[in-house]
């Protein structure tokens, strides 16, 4: 198991290096003089020259990359062009709200998704099943930002139950977490249903029933446990997408997180911030995939990784 974990971890290294090279090239690919762009409008020649040296743009590209990565690994990602604060500090200020929102949304998605999936598999071709699956289809098709705005109108303007936007109390979490979680919940529900149906047809489930095991026990212990294996995969993947979704939802609810920071940085052409955030999001996603792979090994006793 540990060996497997280590091997998977070493697989990640080339991907992460590739990601960092890609993102590094990113700033080089901007048309025009990056130093001039990064220095901002109205910068003097000296300021531009300072930025050039600061970024090491006067050196050779390969040297620049190692320079950049060397600094990045020590937590130095340069300064934001808009606020002049270190990028690491900008991100540090907004990391926690995003982690909170993503986690709460994911819990919402898992609870709704798995229960809807199990119910519709167990009560297959009934009214329950149809409702859950139509709901899931709507969930994957609905634009999250529209759902967010409509809920906002309904629950914050029309009936004043929740605050329109902002961050602070648990009430602020309800609408963003729900809108963000809906898409993931829908995908998880569809996968759970398919996985449960597959498992419920298996011989060992029939055997368990024949033995006289209680139906609820058959469903939860024999079926659900085995159905969880593909569900874990899709859940991990959805978590990654959800991180992407935070960008849109945070900006709707003016959530003080990384998504809002990214949108502002893209609009303001604040390249050091964009660059670092892209790297951070990619790193998170790759690590989530690793955790999913490892969970796989833990929950599926049939799989042995030498």
């Amino acid at each position, binding site marked *: 198991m540990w060996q497997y974990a280590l091997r998977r971890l070493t697989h990640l290294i080339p991907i992460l290096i590739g990601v960092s090279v890609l993102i590094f090239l990113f700033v080089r690919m901007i048309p025009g003089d990056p130093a001039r762009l990064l220095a901002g409008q109205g910068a003097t020649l000296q300021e531009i020259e300072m930025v050039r040296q600061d970024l090491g743009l006067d050196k050779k590209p390969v040297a620049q990359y190692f320079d950049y990565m060397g600094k990045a690994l020590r937590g130095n990602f340069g300064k934001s062009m808009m606020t002049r604060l270190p990028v690491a500090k900008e991100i540090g200020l907004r990391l926690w709200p995003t982690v909170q929102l993503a986690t709460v949304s994911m819990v919402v998605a898992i609870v709704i998704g798995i229960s809807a999936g199990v119910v519709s598999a167990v009560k297959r071709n009934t009214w329950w099943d149809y409702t859950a699956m139509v709901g899931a289809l709507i969930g994957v098709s609905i*634009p999250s930002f529209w759902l967010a705005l409509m809920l906002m109108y309904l629950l914050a303007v029309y009936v004043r139950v929740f605050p329109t936007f902002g961050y602070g109390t648990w009430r602020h979490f309800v609408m963003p977490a729900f809108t963000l979680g809906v898409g993931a919940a829908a995908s998880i529900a569809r996968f759970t249903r398919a996985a449960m149906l597959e498992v419920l047809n298996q011989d060992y489930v029939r055997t368990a029933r024949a033995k006289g095991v209680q139906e609820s026990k058959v469903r939860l212990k024999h079926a659900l446990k085995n159905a969880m294996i593909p569900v874990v995969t899709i859940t991990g993947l959805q978590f990654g997408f959800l991180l992407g979704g935070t960008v849109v939802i945070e900006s709707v609810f003016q959530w003080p997180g990384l998504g809002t920071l990214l949108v502002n940085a893209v609009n303001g052409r604040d390249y050091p911030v964009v660059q670092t955030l892209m790297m951070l999001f990619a790193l998170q996603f790759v690590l989530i995939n690793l955790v999913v792979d490892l969970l796989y090994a833990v929950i599926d006793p049939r799989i042995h990784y030498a």
Partner: protein
Amino acid sequence: MLEWQKALRSFFKRKPAVLGAAVLLALILLAIFGPQLTHFKPTFQDYDHMFEGPSRLHLLGTDQLGRDIWSRLLYGSRLSLLVAASGVVFGAVAGVPLGLIAGFYGKWWDTVIMRSMDILLAFPGILLAIGIIALLGPGLYNVVAAIAIFGVPQFARLVRGSVLQLKGLDYVQAAQAEGSGDTRILARHILPNALAPIMVMATLRTAQAILIASSLSFLGLGAGLDQPEWGAMLADGRAYLQTYPHIAAFPGVAIFVTVLGFNLLGDGLNDMLDPRLRRNV
């Protein structure tokens, strides 16, 4: 011919898929004949009729500049469908050959191509698109590019998988033994058999592409000012949500119905292809 008839019959048995196809057909017709269905130009501003609710004259009301929302939705359907579909097609045009090469030649071709794809796949969901827009700047052409690049690794992965399965089959090996060239084998024997899953993926990808494109425009990273793009219209309506929610509501319905149509069709086609699932229908 018989295969076709079978497939068609199987398709028409799937009511959700037929519904999806009907919705999409209606949308395409609306996009084509849109200008005939309205008296207003999508950019025509009427300052005497701002923020009006739905009426006989303005079917879905007017927005903050007195523009007719129904006309804007009609013209916007052209933008949304074209942007999403061309993004997906370009993605497939680049991704499919990469997948063919990686799967067919294996070895270092496979390693180099698939590792590069892994790098692109490391950016979850809409983030890759946002990064590309950050690089290229806002605008609908760049949204097409972002959707295309986003799709390349997905198509490459899918096709590589199909090629690996097909490569070992007797008829491919027979063609090889016969001395057919690689290009001929790929074009005549492998690609046609890998086409069905590609079509399914393209349909489902288009649904996602419409969501991504409208999200980008909603964030101000896509369509330009005055362009009747659905996501941009929603962003316009956001400022007047408290008093005039209809401005944001209708474009969202349009996006939702379109995405739903593609998803229904894609799911139905997917079920047709996957015999394992067929048992459960």
